[in-house]
C-alpha cells in the first residue's frame, strides 16, 4: 500500500496522463491518440538570440486503431507503465533494462511486445518530448561514459570526491548529475576543457595539464553523453567557467562541438538545460595544420560520407557565421581531415606543451 501513502511525482502524473488518454477516448468512442512532437531537422529552429536549437510545434499523431501504428501505440503505453514503476520505486535504470522489463510474449500468440532494443529506445525519447520530461527525470540513465579531473570537489551519494586527487584516471561522470544526485562543493578552476577523445584526455591528464593551467578536464569518449554535457553546463552556469571544446578536425568533430554548444536536433527540447551557447571551439581547426606545421601525410582523405556530412553542416543555420563557413570550406578544399592524435607526429607531448598553450595564449578559437 506504499503507493497510497506516497504522493505521485510530477513526472509520474504526466505518465498516468497517458492512461487517461486511453480511458477518455474509449468512453467517447474515439480512437485513442497520442500527439508526439516531430524529432527531425524540419521541426527545429535555431534561436539566434539565445544561441539554442529549439523544437518547433509540429506533432505527429499515434493512434491505436490504425494497423500501422497499433503496435507502437501499445509499446508506448507499456514503456510509460515501466517508467511509472521506476518513479514509484524511486530507482534509476538503463535503456536496455527498460527493454527487458517491457518485453514479453503477448498472450495467446507467439508475438513479442518488443523484438529488439531499437524498438523501445525511440519510444522513451517520444515520451521525453511529448511529456516534456528530461530523461534524468524519467530515471533513465546512460552508461557512465565520461571522466573528469581537475580542481573540483563533488559530493556524490554523501561521498566527497576530490577530482584533484584521483590520479590520472579521474572520476567517472555518472549519467545523472542533477543537483539532487551530485553536488558541486568547490571549484577553483579557471576554465573547462572538454576533449572529444579519451586518448587525448589521457594524454592531458597524464601530463597534469589541468594543474599547470588550472582547468577542469572533461571527456565524453566521443559524442559526449548527457551527464558530461550537463556537468559542463553546471560548471559554466554555477561557477561561470568558460568552456573550450577540443575535437578532431572532421565533420563529426564539428557536430560534436555544435551539440555541446547549441543542443542536438533529436532532443532539441533539452537544449535549454544542456546547451552551452558560449562554448568555444579551440581545435582542431582546419587552419591548424598550416599554422602548426602538421605535415600533409598525417592527414586522412575525406571519404564520401565525410564530404556529404560537411555539406550538411554548411547548411545548418548555427554554422552560418562567416568564420565557420570558412572553417568548413577550408577542410573541404584541402580534402583532408586530421585526428587529434596526429599531433603526436611532432612530439608525444606536443598537445600539452605546445599546441594548447599557444591556442590559449593567442585566444585562437572559434565561437
Amino acid at each position: 500500500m506504499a503507493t497510497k501513502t506516497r504522493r505521485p511525482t510530477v513526472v509520474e502524473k504526466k505518465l498516468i496522463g497517458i492512461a487517461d488518454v486511453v480511458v477518455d477516448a474509449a468512453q467517447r468512442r474515439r480512437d485513442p491518440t497520442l500527439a508526439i512532437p516531430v524529432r527531425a531537422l524540419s521541426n527545429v529552429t535555431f534561436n539566434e538570440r539565445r544561441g539554442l536549437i529549439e523544437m518547433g510545434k509540429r506533432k505527429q499523431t499515434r493512434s491505436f486503431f490504425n494497423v500501422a501504428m497499433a503496435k507502437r501505440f501499445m509499446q508506448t503505453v507499456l514503456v510509460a507503465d515501466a517508467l511509472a514503476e521506476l518513479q514509484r520505486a524511486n530507482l534509476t535504470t538503463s535503456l536496455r533494462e527498460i527493454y527487458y522489463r517491457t518485453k514479453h510474449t503477448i498472450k495467446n500468440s507467439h508475438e513479442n511486445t518488443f523484438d529488439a532494443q531499437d524498438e523501445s529506445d525511440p519510444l522513451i525519447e517520444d515520451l521525453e518530448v511529448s511529456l516534456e520530461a528530461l530523461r534524468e527525470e524519467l530515471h533513465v540513465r546512460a552508461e557512465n561514459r565520461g571522466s573528469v579531473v581537475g580542481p573540483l570537489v563533488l559530493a556524490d551519494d554523501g561521498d566527497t570526491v576530490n577530482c584533484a586527487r584521483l590520479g590520472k584516471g579521474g572520476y567517472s561522470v555518472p549519467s545523472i548529475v542533477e543537483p539532487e544526485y551530485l553536488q558541486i562543493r568547490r571549484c577553483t578552476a579557471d576554465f573547462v576543457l572538454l576533449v572529444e577523445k579519451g586518448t587525448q584526455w589521457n594524454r592531458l591528464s597524464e601530463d597534469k595539464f589541468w594543474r599547470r593551467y588550472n582547468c577542469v578536464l572533461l571527456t565524453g569518449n566521443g559524442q559526449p553523453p548527457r551527464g558530461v554535457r550537463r556537468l559542463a553546463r553546471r560548471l559554466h552556469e554555477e561557477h561561470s567557467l568558460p568552456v573550450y571544446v577540443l575535437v578532431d578536425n572532421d565533420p563529426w568533430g564539428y557536430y560534436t562541438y555544435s551539440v555541446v554548444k547549441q543542443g542536438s536536433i533529436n532532443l532539441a527540447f533539452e537544449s535549454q538545460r544542456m546547451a552551452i551557447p558560449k562554448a568555444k571551439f579551440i581545435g582542431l581547426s582546419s587552419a591548424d595544420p598550416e599554422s602548426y606545421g602538421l605535415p600533409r601525410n598525417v592527414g586522412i582523405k575525406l571519404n564520401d560520407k565525410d564530404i556529404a556530412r560537411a555539406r550538411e553542416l554548411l547548411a545548418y543555420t548555427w554554422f552560418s557565421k562567416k568564420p565557420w563557413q570558412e572553417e568548413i570550406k577550408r577542410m573541404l578544399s584541402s580534402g583532408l581531415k586530421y585526428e587529434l592524435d596526429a599531433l603526436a607526429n611532432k612530439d608525444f607531448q606536443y598537445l600539452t606543451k605546445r599546441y594548447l598553450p599557444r591556442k590559449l595564449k593567442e585566444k585562437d578559437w572559434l565561437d
Partner: protein
Amino acid sequence: MASKTAARTAKKKSSAASKRPPAPAKRAPAPPAATVPDAAPPKPPVAKPAPTVTAVEMGARQRDISVSEFFTKNRHLLGFDNPRKALLTCVKEAVDNALDACEEAGILPDVVVRLDVVAPGDTPPPASQATRFRITVTDNGPGIVRQQIPPIFAKLLYGSKFHRLRQSRGQQGIGISAAGMYGQLTTGKPVQIISRTSARAPAHYFEVQIDTKKNEPRILEKKQITWEAPRGTQVTLEVEGRYQKGRASVDEYVEQTIIANPHVKLTYVTPEGETKEFARTFEQLPAAPREIKPHPYGIELGMLLKMLHDTTSHTLAGFLAGDFSRVSPAVAEEIVKAAGVSSRARPRDVHGAAAENLYKAIQATKIMAPPTNCLSPIGESAILSGLYQQIKGDFYTAVSRPPAVYRGNPFIIEAGLAYGRGPEAAESGAAKKEIPLAEGESDDADHELARVIRYANRVPLLYQPSACAITRAVLGTTWRNYGIAQSRGALPAGPMVIFVHMASVWVPFTSESKEAIADYDEIHKEINLALRECGRRLGAFLRRRERAHSEFRRRNIFELYIEEVVESCNRLKGGRLPTARLKDQLQKMAQKLTGGARTDELMGRNGGGPEGLPHSIIVTPDGVEGAVPAGVAAKA
C-alpha cells in the same frame, strides 16, 4: 642428367613405334636438344634433319574409325565422364529402354532396379566406399526376339528409334550398348541379358560383349534357361561406379522418373539394401504416339538430296506428297511449280541447281504445321498426381501447352509447380512458434531457392542445368510478378519445385549424353508461356491466402494489443481501472473498424478454394481441394 637422357630415348622409341601423326613426332625430340646443348651420350638429334613423311606414307596410315572405338575414347560424350555419373547413366539407359519397350507394347510398366555392390574380396565395402556395382533392371515388357538380343545390347547405333519420327525416350540407339561397353571397359564383364517374349516361349540367356574394332556383338554365352517371369527382359551390367546420394544421384533420378511417369510401378533396391517401392498412381498408359513422316520445314538441303535419292516414288510430286507430312498433292504441285521443275521428273534426276530451287520453294510455300498425334504429353492430371504424390506442398498446378513446332519438329511443353512445405510442416511450424522468440530469431529464417526438375520425353535431366533451355527460361521468367522473391539472375526463392517437360519426336539435346535441351527460340517461348501460366496461378493462390491471412491479422492485432494496453493502463492508474469495461469498449470499436462479419467471411473457407484455378490442388491442414486424380484420392 640421367633421367633426361632416359626420357629422351623413351621418347625416341615411342615416336618410332607409335602410329601417331607425324607432326608431334617431329617436334618431340627438339626441346631436350635445346635445353641440353652438349649432352655427351647418344648422337645429338639436333644435327639430324627432321624426318619427313611423304603423302604415300600418310595415306597408308589413313583408315576407318569405328563408332565404338570413337566412343571408347570419347566416353564423356555419352555421359561416362566420372564414376558417379557413369553409374547413373547406366541405370538411366536401362530404365529408358525398359519403359520405351513396355509403352510401345501397350503394357503398364512394372520395373525393378537393383544395385548391388560387387566386392573385390569377401567382405563387401559399404555402398558409399564401393567402386564396382552390378546393375540389374528387370521389366515386364514384350521381351526381345532371340536374334535381336546381341545387336541391341552390343552394337552402337543400332536400334529402331533413330530413323522414325516418333516420341520415345531413346532416340539414337547408343545408350544401352554404350553402357555395356563402359562395363566391359572398366570391369571386363559382359552384359547379361535374359528375355522372354511370352509365357509359352522359352527364356533366353545371353552374355554379350562388343567388338570395339568392328562395332559388332561378340556372343560369349547363349542358352535357354528357366525364368520365373512370364514375359519381359532383364539386363545386368557390371560397372565401375560410385554411389553417392544427393543431387544428380541414382536416387534422385528414380524419384524424378516417378513424378513424370505416374503410370509406372517401380521398385528400387539401393546398394545399401533398402527397398523403395513406388506404387502406380495413374492407371492409364500414355496415349501411344504415332510415327510421322518428316515435315518439309524441318529438313536441310543435304537431307532432301538423300531423300530424293532413296525414295521409291516415281515422280517428284508423288515423292513430295508421299514422303513428307502435310504435303497434299495440291501443295506438292504448288512447290514444284514454284521451283520450276517438272512434277513428273524422276526424283533421282533432281539434283544440283534444281534441287536447291526445290528446297527454296519448299521453304517459301505455306505448309500446315506437322501433325501432333506423334506426341504423347504426360497430361495435366498425371503431372499433378506425380507432383502431389512425390513432393510435399500446399499448392500444385500443371499446364500443358498446345503443340508447337521448331525446325519442322512438333513438340509440346508441359510445366508444373509444387509450392509450400505441406500442411504437416505448417502444423509443426505452428507448434514450434509456441516458444517465445529470442532477440535475433525470426520465423522465416530460410532462403532456399526453387528446385527445377527438367524432363525430355519423360526422362529426367540431371546434369548441366545451366546449359539447358528450361533453366534459362525459369531464370528469365519474372517471378516477382507472381509474388515470389527473385534476385537478379537467380532462381526464384521459396519452397518450390518447378517441373518442366518437353515432349517431341526429336528433342534437340546439346550433346549425345542427353543432359540439356538446346535453346531454340520456339522452345524457349513455349516454356516461358507455360511457366507464366503456372506463375499466374501460384500468384492467385498466394494473393488469396495472403488476403485471408492479413484480414485475420488485422483483426487479431487489435484484439491482441487491447489486452496489453488495458493491463498497462490499469497498472499506471494504480490498479483502480474498470478493466472489463474498458476492454469491452475498445473491442467494440475494433470490430466496427475491421468490418466484423465481412472479415469472418473472408477468413472462411470460401477464401481459399481453387475456383478459377484450373488443374490445381490446394492442400490445407483441413483437407485437399481441387482436381486430385481419382487414383491418388482413393489412396489418400
